[in-house]
């Protein structure tokens, strides 16, 4: 039976200190690698006889404007259906140069997921066969899910708990 421990061990054996930030939030093994390495890691997870992460559940991006030089995270959720175990794999990229290698060679499913990621966050997937917007209009010249386009805050923060006699 494949466990998070074994996956982690395998990754460390193969990539040494290049895979970092291991964690298990809510039981899901999460780790990070430099963005140049993303295909190597994905390929290893796919091909390795023991790991066999051959189902791409999801790709999405997250914007962290405060992390200089690593503002955009691309998050892959992978699934090994035989052993029924998932991993979450992240790469971080500079927002000025958001180029990440495409996973379309490995997973056909990555095609639209990457287009969606590009559409909303502007992550450019190098080698993608059809890198254009998917849900938004093609004339759009910004990436709407980035944090510099805030919506109006609906949650009130102007009121203190102190006034209610607590904390």
């Amino acid at each position, binding site marked *: 039976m494949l466990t998070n421990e074994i996956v982690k061990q395998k990754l460390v054996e193969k990539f040494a200190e290049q895979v970092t930030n291991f964690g298990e939030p809510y039981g899901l093994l999460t780790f990070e690698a430099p963005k140049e390495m993303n295909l190597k890691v994905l390929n290893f997870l796919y091909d390795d006889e023991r790991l066999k992460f051959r189902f791409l*559940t999801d790709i*999405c991006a*997250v914007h962290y404007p405060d992390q200089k030089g690593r503002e955009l995270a691309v998050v892959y959720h992978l699934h090994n259906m035989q052993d029924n175990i*998932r991993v979450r794999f992240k790469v971080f990229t500079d927002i000025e140069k958001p180029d990440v290698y495409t996973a379309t060679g490995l997973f*056909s499913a990555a*095609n639209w997921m990457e287009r969606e990621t590009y559409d*909303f966050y502007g992550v450019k997937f190098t080698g993608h066969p059809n890198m254009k917007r998917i849900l938004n209009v093609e004339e759009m010249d910004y990436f709407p899910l980035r944090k510099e386009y805030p919506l109006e805050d609906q*949650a*009130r923060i102007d009121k203190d708990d102190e006034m209610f006699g607590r904390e």
Partner: protein
Amino acid sequence: MTEQHIKLPEGSIEKTTTTLNLGPTHPATHGVFQNILELDGERVVSAEQTVGYIHRAFEKIAERRTLYQITPLTDRLNYCSPPLNNMGWHMTCEKLLGLKIPKRVDYLRVIIMELARISDHLICNSIVGVDAGAYTGFLYVMQYRELIYEIYEEVCGARLTTNIGRIGGFERNFNDIAFQKLEKFLKEYPGVLKEFENLFQRNRIFMERTMGTGAISAERALNYGFTGPNLRAAGVDYDVRVHAPYSSYEDFDFSIPVGTTGDNYDRWLVRNQEMWQSLRIIEQAYQKVQEFKGAEAEVYHADAPEYYLPPKELVYTRMEPMIWHFKIIMGEINMPVGEVYHSVEAGNGELGFYLISDGGRTPYRLHFRRPCFIYYQAFEELIKGSMLSDAIITMSSLNLIAGEMDA
């Protein structure tokens, strides 16, 4: 067709294929999305799918809403089975918050979710029939979907965009009428489904229209990220209810139907069998619900004062519930920091919620894994070289829901 029917002058550059815009408002697409088909006579040479016509930026809106305000957004993903989306979202929140849900709530949820699955599959299968030229089945089963909607109505007051349940349970206990309606449904529906099945399953015309069209191998289906009935029709027995049981699905006895060829006929059969399995699950769940006695039979939500609205009479008479009421409604509860992925088996497959919280009052990032969006990209591969009329059946048998695709 190698020879042209009309002789073109020597050196003519006139194109020999026809471009057909199927959608975005074509009656055969059953939703707002576009296919640009290149046709050679009636054969599809290539297809390009365009989506996004009803994109509503739910992921962005969710970043400024507290958890309970996001539930109505999930209604509008797969609008053929909104309770499945609602429940999936509630469970994601509960996972983040670490809430423990009472068994009775789990079982009630299972009843609602399986009812939703039946209504989803019912629509899909009867629409496949409509596209194959059999309108009768569709008209006939619609009145039984009505029974399901009436049960929703009794439980939450709404029919289509249900917003059913709350974080921690249900907004109110199921009343007697709801259970009576459920009993009525359980009594009448098997006969109806049997009749519906008889109309199609061994129907020569239907079989010949659907067998061998829109087929995909298990390998390709997995590579394309297929989940749900469409993947199972190709022969992979992946079902989130079994692989990662949520809401006490492990307490139920049911089987996962699989197909072999992954074509339109198998997809139809898998959905049909799943409806029978759903009925089995509902019967078991209803029985389990009835086994609760005394105070236990009154439990319909978890104890989660920070997220579950207190009863109105307490809000008006006591201080503490009133404070909670205001804090919840105004969205003044800070969530725990965390990163959670939770998925449920929705009508079309694995519906995933990836929620990142930075400890604020609204999600830092919320991403929906919409099964339909992911498998629609395989459409070209499914229909290349087939007839236009087969492409239409393939489209409906994939159960493409525009709301889910575009989020």
